[in-house]
């Protein structure tokens, strides 16, 4: 397509503007993390006076960052693995079978996206406490309740996206497998799943990111030993608000795994969104 001079100018200015808006905070995170404490206590400096990695060392003893980190890692990993597994099964049923209640289930799952979290936070807390009193299975104040909660919170969007993805895989493939004598579970495992890998990866990233960042349920369902990063960080700022270099070092530590994972998988994410959400 022919590109006029005006278009090129607008494009340059537009992209540059978006780039400055996006990158400035990212630069601030990284540059502040390697500043000495003196650089962050008075006026803002663009360039660190010296580069030091002291903040990365100190941050582990200032707050129990390692514990928050491990808690978040356990919660996000378990909930996303279970969420993906359950979503795959449910989405396979919706995509490949007609059964009574299918539309009802689909609509009910989607409509849960509308629930304000605050509506079922209090009842959920009370239900977990009661389950604990009745069965001795403790679900509040530790990680298990949080895992169950997150895996459910991410299920609806995951099912929705995977149904779209499975629908885009030709049925002839499974039919051929069934004719060859494979069971439906075998067909799902060795024919549908490999073909749907991008969608499954996308859903897994979504579930992991959501659990990694969630603060509302974590603030009520955890105690000081089971606190996750999302809750730990909020108090972090009130406690040591002047140690900005340490806060930014901690931000780098907790962001790098997730951002790296996201960027490595972004191709899958775009494919997954295109098949699942857009079409």
């Amino acid at each position, binding site marked *: *397509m022919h590109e*006029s001079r005006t278009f090129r100018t607008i*494009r340059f200015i*537009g*992209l540059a503007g978006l*780039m400055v808006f*996006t990158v*400035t*905070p*990212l630069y601030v*995170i990284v540059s502040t993390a390697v500043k000495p404490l003196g650089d*962050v*206590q008075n006026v*803002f400096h663009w360039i660190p006076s010296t580069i030091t990695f002291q903040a990365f060392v100190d941050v582990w003893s200032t707050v129990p960052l390692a514990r928050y980190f491990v808690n978040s890692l356990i919660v996000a990993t378990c909930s996303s693995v279970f969420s993906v597994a*359950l979503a795959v099964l*449910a989405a396979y*049923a919706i995509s490949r*079978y007609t059964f009574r209640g299918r539309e009802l289930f689909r609509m*009910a799952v989607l409509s849960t*996206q509308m*629930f304000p*979290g*605050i*509506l*079922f936070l*209090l*009842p*959920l807390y*009370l*239900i977990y406490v009661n389950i604990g009193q009745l069965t001795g299975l403790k679900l509040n104040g530790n990680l298990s309740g949080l895992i*169950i909660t997150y895996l*459910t*919170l991410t*299920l609806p969007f995951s*099912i929705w996206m995977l149904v779209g993805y499975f629908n885009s895989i030709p049925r002839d493939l499974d039919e051929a497998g069934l*004719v060859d*004598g494979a*069971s*439906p*579970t075998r067909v799902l495992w060795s024919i549908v799943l490999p073909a749907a890998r991008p969608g499954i990866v996308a859903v897994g990233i979504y579930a992991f990111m959501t659990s990694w*960042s969630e*603060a*509302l349920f974590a603030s009520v369902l955890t105690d000081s030993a089971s606190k996750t*990063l*999302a809750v730990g*960080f*909020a108090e972090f*700022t009130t406690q040591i608000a002047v140690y*900005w270099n340490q806060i*930014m070092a901690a*931000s780098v530590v*907790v962001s790098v795994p997730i*951002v790296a994972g*996201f*960027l490595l998988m*972004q191709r899958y994410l*775009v494919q997954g969104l*295109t098949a699942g*959400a*857009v079409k």
Partner: protein
Amino acid sequence: MVTPVGTRPAVPAVPRTGRRRGWSPSRRVLPYLLIGPALLFELLVHVIPMLTGVSISFLQLNQFYLRRWLQAPFAGLANYRIAFDLQSEIGLDLLRSVGITLAYSAVVVSVSWLFGIFGATLLQSSVRGRSLLRTFFLIPYALPVFTAVIVWKFMLDHDSGLVNHVLAGTGLGDGNTFWLLGDNAFISMALIGIWRLWPFALLTLMAGLQSIPTEVYEAAEVDGANRWQQFTGLTLPMLRPVNQVLVLVLFLWTFNDFNVPFTLFAGSTPASADLVSVHVYQSSFITWNFGLGSAMSVTLLVFLLVVTSLYIAVTSRRARNA
């Protein structure tokens, strides 16, 4: 096909004829087995708590009954009367909080969408460094919410923040603004919301643009349509189904947003940034009046249901008429 446990052969018999194996459930039962686990968790975490929440809203559940909440006395509509009473502080505060939340959603959704469509259209052309730009644009969305919020909190800091430093340096401001207090808190929160969410709009719209065949544009160009005419006459109508979902999702996310104000203000939210989920959270846990808190949440749910149904009805009708 029921086999008594004791008589089950050690090695499952595989029928030579027919495609089904011995342990494989029938076609009628299988879909229910597949959705079963998901359904179970949905019931436990979404459906039952929601129904419990609705029933709690009719109870006088305050700190006296918290330990034995099943015995809390029935209160009828009393909680709703308090929440809706615009003569009282509680009712007025709730209404104001809903208004602030709607304003926050409106600003964040519209600006995020504008940035998203602008960026997606510009990246659609073959500009150099396209994939690198896209990668950078997506980072704010990939960043955990709390780190995104905290870096802005530092940048907006009165004494050692970048924003005041730049404003004073360029002469655009006096460099003495408290960005996280008073009415400024709303602007700051909206700015952070946009920074975090516009990449999602970009991602979705880029996926949407990719599904428009290039021949359509080539045909339009032959007809002499300029870039702007192609955008309004072709791109926007073709993106309508994508936009319908995208705007709704962005609206629901921002309206129910808790993570951003929770991390930004850590418990002491200024009145101008009192988003409704934080408002209900604080009024429930400060006064321990869960009956009233539930009544407020149910009101929100009904409000969102009405808004969403209206939105879907209107946008779908317009799509049919188009």
